């Protein structure tokens, strides 16, 4: 776990949700510190086993215990009061809370010698024991699952392991009632020091209570909260190692997956960690547009198969996950961004797509011409590499070659920049800015190929690989300081996905570069532009790569611009509907995602929307036209805006 990331994340959440974050932190700290460093525990340990460690002063642990109890109440109240959380809360959540809080409450009461010291003490010991045992069981169960992927989760664990474990536990507990210290384990022996004088009535209550809780825990164990106690924790710990939206390469001869047997342990962990909180569904543009996709259901369906899996289960996932589902995803990463336990439904969707494309030959018909163009011509438009430099027109753009192999900035054009008529103008604007700022730059020209992002997100790994390898080979021929591109999809591929194939480059998005140019006073926006502007953050720029400030800083640098933010903005932006190959797929079910976004933009009352992605620009243009606003709304690229204001 990277320390920097953890601290950043904690700080971020402390500012956004102070009460919840502080409460969670205190709770977890107390949960670990108190049991180990409580004076009484350490003394007991010394008397029974003859060793111990320094303990904390009473007053500190006391205050901490009180805080932990208060935190538990905050959790309870949150679950009861907040509507959307309440909806998602099941009995298991309350059980967990009770299970976790009981040792602290009873211990606190016992320590302060309220009316019945013995009663609370015994209660405290028992509840602590239950918590410990259930935690151990849940982790043991979890480890077993990962030692053997084909473990028959429900049958074997539930019936044999669990029951046996619980029986053994009962024996221990009843054993120390009957025979005293020599029977029991440390916790039990501690209890037996005090227990002999308890009354029969108290013992009955203890037994009854104990078995009630135990029965409840047994029922909830495999399906309920304890699964996530271990799975989610590991998932959260593991998360910082992943780059959002970065797809893994496939092993040779592998083609995504269709049965759970070929899922990686990380993917299994994801499916296991999902707590069905529904946050992904609330934020998924496909769900909002009424498409048949639910990211949470993808995970739950996979988990359903895991639970049934017994090695022989090779039933394809395509029988329970329909093609409409997997081809509706725009890979916008909203689900990943909002998931509290950091699961990733998208890499599962992509792996399902990979299987459909490369194994079942079920790539939707409408995108096949595009893929064929990539195979034959190396671009999504089928124009061919010879036309890759046509966009330059009469601008002075240096093209890298054997004689001219050195430059500061390698301007990556991409298919949209080279062939999409709307976006070629944006690239020409970029050239003007670079010339104006005196930046030395060059393009790869006819040697460039599509970055392969679209093919990869449609599951065509072979095409992606050959395109990417070709590009890496070409790029490596030249010396430059950094690659700059306007397309967030190219940016993402070059920056995060090419390293896997051996292409480690310093990649920068154009908005970052332009922002730094403005900061260094290399360009000054001279001409004011009077408009109320709103910002559409491209998913692969804002959410995935966290580049949100440059657009705003640039906009503020231009006089007369007033920014009106949308509700879905920055990392929480709403997809334009074109990512993940959706640009080329037919969108026949539900509404069009870009229409929804365009309506949000029109409703904001702005007269201009700024974005920084060729796909977003096209989709927003279309969407705004379809929305037929009373006041015209213009969709522009941030680069165009800067170019027009520097004159």
């Amino acid at each position, binding site marked *: 776990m990277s320390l920097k990331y953890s601290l950043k994340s904690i700080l971020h959440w402390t500012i956004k949700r102070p009460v919840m974050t502080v409460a969670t932190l205190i709770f977890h700290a107390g949960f670990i510190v108190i049991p180990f460093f409580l004076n009484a525990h350490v003394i007991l340990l010394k008397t029974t086993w003859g060793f111990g460690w320094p303990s904390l002063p009473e007053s500190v642990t006391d205050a901490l215990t009180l805080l932990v109890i208060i935190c538990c109440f905050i959790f309870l109240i949150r679950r009861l009061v907040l509507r959307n959380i309440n909806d998602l809360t099941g009995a298991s959540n309350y059980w967990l809370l009770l299970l976790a809080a009981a040792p602290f409450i009873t211990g606190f009461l016992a320590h302060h010698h309220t009316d019945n010291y013995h009663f609370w003490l015994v209660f405290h010991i028992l509840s602590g024991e239950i918590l410990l045992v259930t935690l151990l069981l849940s982790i043991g169960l979890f480890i077993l699952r990962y030692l053997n992927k084909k473990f028959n989760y429900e049958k074997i664990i539930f019936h044999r392991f669990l029951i046996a474990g619980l029986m053994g536990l009962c024996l221990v507990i009843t054993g120390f009632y009957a025979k005293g210290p020599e029977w029991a384990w440390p916790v039990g022996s501690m209890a037996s020091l005090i227990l002999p004088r308890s009354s029969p009535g108290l013992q009955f209550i203890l037994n009854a209570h104990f078995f009630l809780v135990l029965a409840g825990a047994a029922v909830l164990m495999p399906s309920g909260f304890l699964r996530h106690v271990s799975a989610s924790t590991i998932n959260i710990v593991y998360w910082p190692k992943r780059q959002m939206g970065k797809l893994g390469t496939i092993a040779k*001869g592998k*083609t995504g997956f269709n049965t759970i047997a070929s899922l990686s342990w990380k993917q299994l962990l994801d499916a296991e960690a999902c707590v069905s909180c529904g946050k992904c569904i609330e934020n998924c543009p496909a769900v909002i547009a009424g498409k048949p996709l639910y990211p949470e259901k993808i995970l739950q369906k996979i988990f359903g198969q895991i639970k049934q899996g017994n090695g022989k289960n090779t039933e394809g996932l395509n029988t329970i996950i329909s093609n409409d589902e997997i081809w509706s995803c725009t890979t916008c990463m909203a689900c990943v961004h909002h998931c509290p336990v950091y699961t990733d439904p998208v890499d599962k969707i992509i792996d399902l797509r990979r299987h459909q*494309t*490369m*194994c*079942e*030959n079920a*790539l939707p*018909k409408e995108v*096949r*011409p595009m*893929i*064929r163009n990539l195979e*034959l*011509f190396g671009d999504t438009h089928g124009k*061919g*590499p*010879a*036309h*890759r*430099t046509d966009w330059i027109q009469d601008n002075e753009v240096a093209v890298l070659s054997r004689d001219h192999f050195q430059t500061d900035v390698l301007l990556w054009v991409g298919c949209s920049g080279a062939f999409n008529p709307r976006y070629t103008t944006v690239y020409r604007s970029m050239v003007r800015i670079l010339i104006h700022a005196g930046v030395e730059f060059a393009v790869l020209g*006819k040697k460039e190929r599509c970055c392969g992002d679209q093919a990869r997100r449609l599951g065509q790994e*072979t095409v992606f690989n050959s395109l990417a390898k070709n590009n890496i080979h070409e790029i490596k021929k030249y010396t430059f300081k950094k690659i700059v591109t306007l397309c967030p999809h190219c940016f993402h591929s070059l920056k995060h996905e090419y390293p896997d194939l051996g292409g480690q480059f310093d990649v920068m998005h154009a908005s970052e570069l332009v922002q730094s140019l403005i900061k260094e006073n290399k360009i000054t926006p001279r001409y004011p532009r009077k408009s109320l502007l709103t910002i559409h953050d491209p998913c692969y720029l804002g959410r995935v790569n966290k580049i949100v400030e440059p657009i705003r800083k640039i906009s503020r640098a231009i006089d007369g611009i007033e920014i009106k933010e949308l509700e879905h903005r920055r990392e929480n932006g709403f997809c334009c509907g074109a990512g993940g190959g959706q640009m080329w797929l037919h969108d026949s079910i539900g509404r069009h995602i870009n229409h929804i976004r365009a309506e949000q933009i029109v409703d904001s009352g702005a007269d201009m929307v700024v974005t920084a992605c060729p796909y977003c620009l096209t989709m927003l243009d279309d969407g705004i036209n379809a929305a037929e606003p009373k006041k015209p709304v213009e969709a522009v690229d941030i680069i165009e805006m800067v170019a027009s204001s520097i004159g």
Partner: protein
Amino acid sequence: MKIIVCIKQICQTYAQTGVDAETHYLAPEDQIFRINPYDEAALEIALTLKDKHPDIEIILLILGPVIVEDELKRCLALGADYLYQIEQSASLGSQDKAKFLARALETLAPDLVLCGKESMDRQNGQVACFLAEFLNQPFVSAIETLNMSNDNKTAVVQRSCGRGARQILQSCLPAVFSVDMGAYGFRMPTLKAQARADIQPVHHVTGLSDASTGKSMVTSYISPPCPRTKRTLAPDSDLASFDRIKLLLTGSRMKKKTQILDGSPEFQVTGMISFLKEHGFLTPAQTQKSK
């Protein structure tokens, strides 16, 4: 059942961005090597048949060296069974190509031969009909769909005759059909099939060394007469205004000498040959040679 699909590897020139007059202003990026798309359409017809009758065997036949190996392997991965190559390095005319192919086909003895309607580079569109002639088999050009009868003895094909018109024909087998782009499908190979295809060998058709390569066809290039046959600087002012404008537009008052040939195909062909002879396009010697 055995289907042979004749494949031509072409060099598609889709742009002229070079600066060198020597190479006709072509840059290396202006061309891609690929399989003639019409041949891909022919393969698609064969594969559609194979989808219905899995026992069909599809053989790809190429003439000359392997140029685009990837694409040929891709064709194999799509579902073709074997790749045969006729080794031959000289550049040949349509008729000679057809001769080579016909000899190879005689040894392979297919039930059906499919070719592209024409190749995208030369656009002669002759190989298929020469082939049918040499094999002495029925020929239908520019088909778009093909249905086999149950006993595999006859085929019903639909051909496009331009301007949206369709013609449905029945033909006995074996036969030679040329295929139009209407049949083109975007089939994609699976990874497994691709891996299998990658290790498939190229079979050679041998024993054709005695095939004659002597030039038996002469091509003469005739440029069609320009509509403006006579340059008229100023229209004759004696004429009526209508005729004067017409004169300006057409350039002269020359009458078009068009002759429309009716009748059966045989009659039309004889008419054409006599027309060519009459106008000196065909010398008696040439007529002799091509026979």
